[in-house]
């Protein structure tokens, strides 16, 4: 596997050459500092670009063309990453060695045309496609609170986000969407193309000469911003919050939000992961053992860490009557971690699990892309250094971090045991 980075006029090319796969994958990322209204607008933009282009204007024609290109995968999406909003254009196709000659070029051209020559008429997105996709998205937003888990997670984030981008609803806002028309969306698109930082990651059995001239022909007109974009969002501390909300859902969803004080980059990337794995990140974690196996209080309990926000979340699906018992068992578990109530053997186990999963990153093109993205955007080490760094985590480091884990928000979406 050979990685080369080339700064071009309109974009930065990251080429990862390997002949291990029968497919070629490309990911173009447009990054910009987050703005609340953009979440909704770019989500719709992603929806529209995923189903039509100038050459293949309707969804039907678009999908049939993808089938013609041997089930080519082409997807656009928008997601938040700390302070940044990333618009991701993804392509995956079968190398022409396994289909027919000329397919590499045709597949790439289809993808780049979709991105750069969308279905535009007179400085606005095509009315029909815009209307259909807007309607679809609007209906999704109307029903988004039908899912108790999504709702509870979002509620937790609004409480702990305290007005920062963490509190924005990443799935978008109905009010913003309602006001959006095809002209404005075109401006959003144009803005993105001209102002965002653009990185293009390419992985597969393909050379720089195969791809660079084609990319240049699409992007050399634009000016790529060289500025360093910082994804990290400092945790918005405030007065601790406890909130219970009644609902007519069947099961209650418990979310407990924690933050970790004064973490170093090394702690964020390695120690926090180890801590989370031990606490609730696996099916033999402390929380799984205590809350599920020993006390039979739930089926699902787990924790997730979010290094970009210095935070940790505990999720559980419980019966409302078991709320207090569950919370107190979780708090006891947090305390056990602070006291270093785990063995060196358990620690080694976690490190070995990470080592194994790091080593297997090379099996999947999308994991390899993720590896390089996190390296470029978040200064996270590449594979060998990552494995090496993880091996140096000690029990003292984990205990030290455990003592900086602070409870901030407890949120319970209370179910009443009967939805139907």
């Amino acid at each position, binding site marked *: 596997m050979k990685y080369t980075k080339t700064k071009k006029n309109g974009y930065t090319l990251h080429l990862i050459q390997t002949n*291990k*796969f*029968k*497919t070629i994958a490309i990911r173009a990322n447009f990054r910009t500092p987050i703005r609340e209204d953009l979440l909704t607008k770019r989500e719709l933009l992603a929806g529209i670009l995923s189903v039509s282009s100038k050459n293949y204007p*309707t*969804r*039907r024609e678009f*999908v*049939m063309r993808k*089938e*013609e290109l*041997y*089930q080519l995968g082409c997807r656009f999406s928008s997601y938040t990453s700390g302070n940044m909003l990333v618009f991701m254009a993804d392509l995956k196709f*079968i190398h022409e060695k*396994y*289909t027919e000659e000329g397919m590499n070029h045709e597949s790439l051209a289809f993808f780049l045309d979709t991105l750069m020559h969308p279905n535009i008429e007179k400085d606005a997105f095509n009315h029909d496609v815009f209307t*259909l996709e807007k*309607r*679809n998205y*609007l*209906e*999704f937003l*109307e*029903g988004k*609170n*039908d*899912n*108790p888990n999504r709702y509870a997670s979002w509620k937790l984030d609004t409480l702990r986000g305290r007005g920062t981008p963490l509190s924005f609803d990443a799935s978008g806002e109905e009010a913003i969407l309602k006001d959006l028309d095809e002209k404005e969306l075109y401006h959003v698109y144009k803005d993105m193309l001209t102002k965002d930082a653009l990185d293009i990651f390419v992985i597969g059995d393909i050379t720089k000469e195969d791809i660079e001239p084609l990319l240049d022909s699409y992007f050399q007109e634009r000016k790529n911003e060289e500025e360093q974009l910082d994804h990290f969002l400092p945790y918005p501390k405030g007065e601790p919050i406890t909130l219970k909300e009644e609902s*007519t*859902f*069947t*099961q209650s969803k418990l979310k407990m939000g924690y933050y970790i004080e004064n973490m170093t980059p090394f702690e964020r990337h390695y120690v926090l992961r180890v801590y989370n794995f031990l606490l609730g990140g*696996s*099916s*033999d974690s402390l929380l*799984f*053992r205590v809350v*599920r196996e020993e006390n*039979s*209080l*739930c*089926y*699902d309990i787990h924790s997730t860490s979010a290094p970009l926000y210095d935070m940790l979340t505990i999720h559980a*699906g*419980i*019966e409302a009557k078991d709320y207090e018992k569950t919370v107190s068992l979780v708090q006891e578990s947090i305390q056990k971690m602070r006291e270093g109530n785990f063995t060196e*053997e358990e620690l080694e*186990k976690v490190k*070995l*699990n990470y*080592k*194994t999963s790091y*080593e*297997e990153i*090379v*099996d*999947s093109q999308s994991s390899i892309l993720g590896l390089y993205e996190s390296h470029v955007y978040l200064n996270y080490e590449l594979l060998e250094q990552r494995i090496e760094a993880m091996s140096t985590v000690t029990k003292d480091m984990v205990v030290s971090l455990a003592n900086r884990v602070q409870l901030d928000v407890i949120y319970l979406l209370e*179910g009443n045991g009967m*939805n*139907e």
Partner: protein
Amino acid sequence: MNKLEIKGLDLTLYEERLANGLTIYVIPKENSKGIYATFTTKFGGHDIDFIPEGKEEVVSVPAGIAHFLEHKMFAQKSGEDVMSLFSKNGVSCNANTSSYKTCYLFDGSSHFEENLNLLLDYVQEPYFTEENVEKEKHIIEQEIDMTADNPYSIGYFRLMENMFVCDPSRIRVIGSKESVNSITKEDLYTCYETFYHPGNMFLIVTGNVDYERTIEIVKENQEKKKFKEFKKPTLKHYEEPVSVLKKEDTIEMNITVPKLTLGFKFDLKRLEKELQFDEATIRRYVAIYANLKFGTASCFLEEVKQEELTTSDMDYSIYATDDILLLILEGDSKNAIALKNRILKEVDNYQIDTHSFELKKRGMIASCVYTSENIYSLNQKVLSDMISTGEVEVAILENYKKLNYEDFMRVIQSLDFTNYAFVTVNPKKK
């Protein structure tokens, strides 16, 4: 040992049947790092009426027992935690149950030999006690509650209940709270003794492994253990009528946009006989049909979106028993009944052009290449072949290439679309 080339995909399948009846499949993928191993019994949520090992009469066990047993396989007499043992070796483990199988697995390349032995050992050493069985009940109740707020799942479960008259496909794999609470330690042992004999199980390993060594490890492991002589489990056969139990049903839930679930019930035995095709071929043509008619590139979807009958894409799935084939469509619609009527009108329209058919076929052939790249998809493919037909389809690429428009039209013209049931999930009236 059999060595079978998976033609056109640069893969080889090694097959070995041990003296105790266990079948082993290995697909080495030398250029991968990862290893994925699954150990499966042909016993799932569907199998609740059978003749237990050593008995002569059919007994009925509570619904959800295969899934319950799956949970309890992780209990060990030594008190050791199976998850933790795998984790110590740097890999993750899991298990899952569906209608016709229960599958135990581990995922990861570190300490392969130990993990393979561990997988065989824990699944072959049951330890059920009254206490550990009781303890599991509330956990599974919570697992049942987890899907209770999902309108798609609720609609699907109700449709299955209404489509089938006596076949246990109508009950949920997980069972109900009531059936789960009635499960006893003895029930679990009855199922275990009947279905967990190596002759009823198979092991599939895909990834960075040496096939000879893999088979050797399993052989050595199995030779140390004693098993009774294998007797193929006798399952009750259901005289499932082709007609549905209940054609129309409505559920009210706290949701915003109504959901429609519509199923067509086809007589698989009749189709196989009339068309002289096997189940896999019929299934494949029905899948192409569903995709052409109701998929993202269909004219139908374009029309109903214009008519504002739906805003999103529709999903389709296929479910089969020995005798019955279901085609199930799911969609969101503010007017679910009108959407249902449009679907019923659309199935009367047999106009499908050859070009669209050829594109779907090309897509299916391409998807074989994607599958061949991924150790999980490969393992899953062997597993589902074993469950549905009992043999691995090594000629998959050729079989896809053989699909043709004439046969396709013959199949779809034989389908009886008048035999259906549907469920709408509506918002509760405030």
